[in-house]
């Protein structure tokens, strides 16, 4: 991982480990999704009827998978970067870029999504919104809440990274720069 140069703090470690654990459990969702698709296809051929609720369940599962996966991928530093120059930068330069990027770009983006997605969920809850198609799934607010939840998780892992960057830039004595595992 390219973030290994950043030392962990007790809290960043705790957050990252939790995110990793969530990611491991979350990943099982793809097996479930696979099973739902296969079941739906077989039912369509065996009984000549596709089930709307199974089709909706498919995109429910997929949404939960990619939204809650955002934080997990962040913790694993899987989000794509353009490496051409980044690879050759000194650790301090990288850490400054990370700091400015997180504070000026990433956190404002997360803030926008969180601020506007919470009313998005509460309105749906208040209106007791259900699926528009006949036979669709109830409780639309539940799947809609995957959006703020995913971004909240992302924010948590971003905080962990911020702690590490902060620690590296301002509290790091040269001797302990390899304190990370």
């Amino acid at each position, binding site marked *: 991982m390219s973030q290994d140069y950043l030392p962990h703090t007790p809290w960043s470690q705790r957050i990252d480990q939790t995110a990793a654990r969530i990611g491991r459990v979350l990943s099982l969702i*793809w097996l479930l999704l696979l099973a739902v698709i296969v079941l739906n296809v077989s039912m369509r051929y065996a009984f000549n009827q596709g089930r709307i609720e199974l089709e909706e369940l498919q*995109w429910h599962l997929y949404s939960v998978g990619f939204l809650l996966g955002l934080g997990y991928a962040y913790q694993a530093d899987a989000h794509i970067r353009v490496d*051409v120059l980044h690879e050759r930068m000194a650790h301090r330069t990288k850490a400054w870029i990370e700091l400015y990027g997180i504070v000026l*770009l990433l956190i404002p983006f997360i803030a926008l*999504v969180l601020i506007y997605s919470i009313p998005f969920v509460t309105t749906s809850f208040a209106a007791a919104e259900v699926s528009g198609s006949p036979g669709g799934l109830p409780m639309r607010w539940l799947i809609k809440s995957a959006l703020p939840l995913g971004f909240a998780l992302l924010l948590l892992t971003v905080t962990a990274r911020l702690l590490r960057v902060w620690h590296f830039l301002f509290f790091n004595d040269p001797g302990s720069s390899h304190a990370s595992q």
Partner: protein
Amino acid sequence: MPANEILAIGMFVSFIALVFTGFPVAWLLGGLAIVFSALAIVLEADFQLATGVDWNYTSLTVERIWNVMENWVMVALPMFILMGLLLDRSGIANQLMHSFARLFGSLRGGLAITVTVIGLLLAATTGIIGASVVLLALLGLPAMLQQNYDKSLAAGTVCAVGTLGILIPPSIMLVLMADRMSMSVGDLFLGAVFPGALLGGLYIGYLLLVGWLQPHRAPASPAEPFDWAAIRALFWAILPPGFLILAVLGSIFFGLASPTEAAGVGAGGALLLAVIKKQMNRAVMAEVLQETTRTTAYIFAVLLGATAFSLVLRGLGGDELIEGALLSLPFEPTGIIVAILVATFLLGFFLDWIELTLIVLPLVAPVVVNLGFDPVWFTILFAVCLQTSFLTPPVGFAIFYLKGVAPEGIGVTTIYRGVVPFIVLQVIGMLIIFNWQAIVTWLPTQAYG
């Protein structure tokens, strides 16, 4: 120039400039959307300059994300990723390499052709350039070098075939492109079949030619007797993955299944295959699933960031700006297409297909369609252009990935020399596709019969 257009240009320029800092592309895109919304609001409130963007407008991002969430077609994406990873771990590639080499090894250039055919067959595994180049490099490179292949030829083959994977259906790039272009995934898959085969055919032709004219660069293996056992082994090696991929494509072709269903069932088939081949256990399964989560998440992160970015860019009039700029070029309509492709080619040096598909394609596509060109044809041409770009020095993605895993003695210059002939082949392929649109458009019109 009105304030909003200056902001739109500033937004695009900031993106290109800041992407080189190495900050994750997804968050750069999302963040710039917020920063430029804020700028627009300040300009409007404090300087009385009309910009047309406010927080209410930018907050539409949430609606757009919801549209992504409830998009049933996009469910195919993680399933194709899972299918690819499962095929990757199932040991099929290894078995294919072994049995192909046994049959074609005694042909000059045969090993390189083997790598090409495996790359085409397992293109499903890939879609992700890094993954396919690494797979082919680990599998094919040692075998070719052991047989005294010219290093640059071996390296060039691996790079070129590795990038071809993003084009060959079922390809996740095409799923994403179809979504952005509001096209059917099936049409795009079918449109890519002949262009993919054409490029594969050009590669194989070139390798045969090298084997014939310059035998020392692609020597044959010490003659192994040709026997039926070898053919049988090859048949059994090709059958499972070949059947799986044909079943996925065929069921889409004949309208038996949606791409989502085909992807899910394909992933199920790949899982079954891995279990039968005894390559599956809890640890491998967990790893594959987690890799699926990470890959899916980073692709969708860019999708979400790009959604916000494009939304604000459109609000600032970026669309009309691009359209105006393109239409004011002193060219014929075909000249405009060429200009777009050249720009894409250059951007492809630095940006991955994900960003280009999500940002550039939706910007230029309406112009192209308004000029009366076939959208499927243009999208495939765009895809081939991207693929060529990833292959081209000085900063082709494929070259860097290969450099990362190549054995000692294969330096960057060796790889550069190796990819040059393949770039020429790509250009030939693009010219053919450019001049004979039917190569792309014929198959989709025959489908769903």
